[in-house]
């Protein structure tokens, strides 16, 4: 990657996401590395917590609004806000403004944040114009299109473009990469039987590709699919796409040691 050194670096705030913070910090560090190598000055606003989806998708608008206001405060003033998750980025960019329909001042701030917020893959390719990365990954990977990134934000080709530049990597598409894995946030524990049926179909589709690694852009989906693959005893390594693109693909896969 080549950074344009003539213009001042873009000030980018990383929205870490609560799952990455708690379970897979490597994804956050991979995102920072990718952004810095593309010429961004990356900061991590300390007061960020969660985007509020658990409350929002459970019908609790009052809590969602309070959490959204907090996020809007935390990310004020940055050129861009980038999340290694289509789901969380979609929450900020597509759902926050509607939470403040009765409050024009807050709605304007929510819309401003929405304009500045991006999913990581889309930001790298569509905004920064990154076409290739300096990374090596020996193996055949398959890529799952997480729902919010795909359908709310149009993340489809961008990760594939970047993966195409990784030395040693080959991509084997699933029959239905766009079908939901059954995670759905609290859905997976509220309706575990349906979720299980859905993720079982997904792991069968993954296995049918013969790929040794599963990648995706959302940690929730990845944890769900990793957990099912491992319960089924399938030897597929699971990683966030940012880890492979940042040449950090040698760390232990999700749910594994060493």
């Amino acid at each position, binding site marked *: 990657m080549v950074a344009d050194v003539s213009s001042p670096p873009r000030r980018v705030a990383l929205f870490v996401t609560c799952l990455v913070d708690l379970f897979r910090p490597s994804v956050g560090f991979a995102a920072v590395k990718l952004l810095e190598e593309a010429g961004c000055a990356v900061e991590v606003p300390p007061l960020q917590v969660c985007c509020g989806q658990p409350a929002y998708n459970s019908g609790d608008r009052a809590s969602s609004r309070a959490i959204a206001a907090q996020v809007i405060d935390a990310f004020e003033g940055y050129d861009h806000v980038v999340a290694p998750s289509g789901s969380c980025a979609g929450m900020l960019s597509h759902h926050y403004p509607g939470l403040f329909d009765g409050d024009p001042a807050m709605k304007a701030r929510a819309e401003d944040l929405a304009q500045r917020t991006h999913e990581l893959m889309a930001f790298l390719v569509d905004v920064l114009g990154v076409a290739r990365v300096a990374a090596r990954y020996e193996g055949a990977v398959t890529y799952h299109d997480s729902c*919010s990134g795909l359908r709310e934000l149009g993340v489809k080709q961008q990760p594939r473009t970047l993966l195409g530049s990784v030395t040693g990597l080959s991509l084997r598409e699933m029959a239905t990469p766009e079908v939901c894995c059954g995670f759905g946030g609290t859905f997976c524990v509220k309706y575990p039987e349906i979720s299980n049926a859905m993720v079982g179909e997904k792991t069968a589709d993954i296995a049918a590709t013969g790929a040794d690694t599963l990648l995706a852009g959302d940690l929730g989906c990845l944890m769900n699919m990793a957990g099912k693959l491992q319960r089924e005893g399938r030897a597929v390594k699971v990683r966030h796409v940012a880890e492979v693109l940042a040449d950090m693909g040698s760390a232990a896969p999700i749910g594994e040691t060493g």
Partner: protein
Amino acid sequence: MQSTARDFKHNVDAALADPNLQDSLGKLKVGFSERRRQAAERLPEFEALRDRARDIKDHALANLDFYLEEFERKVLALGGHVHWAPTAEDARRIIAELCTSVGARTIAKSKSMVSEEIGLNDHLEALGLAPIETDLGEYIIQLRHEPPSHIIAPAVHLTKDQVADTFLEHHRALGFTKRLTERNDLVAEARHVLRQKFLDADVGLTGANFLVAETGSSMLVTNEGNADLSNTLPKMHIVLASIEKVIPTLEDAAVLLRVLARSATGQESSTYTTLNTGPKRDGDLDGPSQYHVVILDNGRSSVLGTRMQDMLRCIRCGACMNHCPVYGAIGGHAYGWVYPGPIGAVLTPQLIGVEEAGNLPNASTFCGRCESVCPVRIPLPGLMRHWREREFERHLTPRAVRQGLALWSFVARRPKLYRRLTALANRLLAMFGRADGRYRSLPLASGWTRFRDFPAPEPGGTFHARWARHGGSRVRP
């Protein structure tokens, strides 16, 4: 129809354990969505047509009173009759009275979801009348005393073998004693049996895909032609339709038809498109001497002018359920009432109450595939979320969920406390999961670990802890 939506979780268990259903669903998931995709790709203006279809329905809904009255005027001028049914009970009563007014015994029915909604068949049978379903799928499930499991493919939950057994059981008395194994033979046998029923029928009852205000026509699409026989052979034709079926013009119908068939089955057009415009006129060779349109509200008008109005744009193509991974896992019967899938999850709480059907809008991952294929762009996940908000406001959300949510949002609104608690959770989960990198079981997370391993956090602390340790940098200083 009696609802079992309240027993949704029980219905789900039964559906997942039914091998015939799972076999049928496996085929449905691939077939419908692939055909729809190809049909959409073949028509360059398909996306623009979806916008126009949405706008046509929005315009009709915004002026619903005007177009309904216009439709009524036209039907009356043609010599037909319009009956307004505020409730399901009203519709049942009106239809029963119409049937008895001509001394009807047999009623040939073309497929109508609204007739399922109002429980018409049971009501007519209780009065000693014999409603006969003439759509093949509806006929099969009528023989089996089952409700439809899909709005355009009512018997999609059944395998060919199950249909063969059903026909053998019910047609034996009519002289058909051979168990058939070929699809075409099954269709031919049903055709033979149904032909006589059409000839016997005193009343033909159909639904309507659209009511066209400018001409007073009701419009129906089928692939079997059964609607044509239902409405031309008997002396009375009753159309049963709900209020949102009215559209302004034939031109509008042409737009809607173009997206309807493609979205439903991937066809460019359904095999039969039938317009009924009043009763038989002087000089007509055939047709009904009486033409009645029963227009049902059943709670729909109460969403006009609200955010939920979008649900009334639905043209009943079934694309949302064909593309829904939840429907694909559990089938239509699990939803417990007439309308399954994403549109059912939105419509059912409106029609029978959110107390009864509260599970349906919750049983979604919000994957958005339904909205992405809806020909009239109904924001289905948004409407489901709206129901969840209503449930939350009315304290219908399960207590454990409410309490968990209250605790979580208390912490999430206090970043420093959140940071301390996540650091603790991270340390404990990483420490006890150290050996395998994951958990096979975890207290308070059995919903997850019953079916999946739970990944332990990678060692080294939370992202924020590590970031702070590095002094705000990705590499250790």
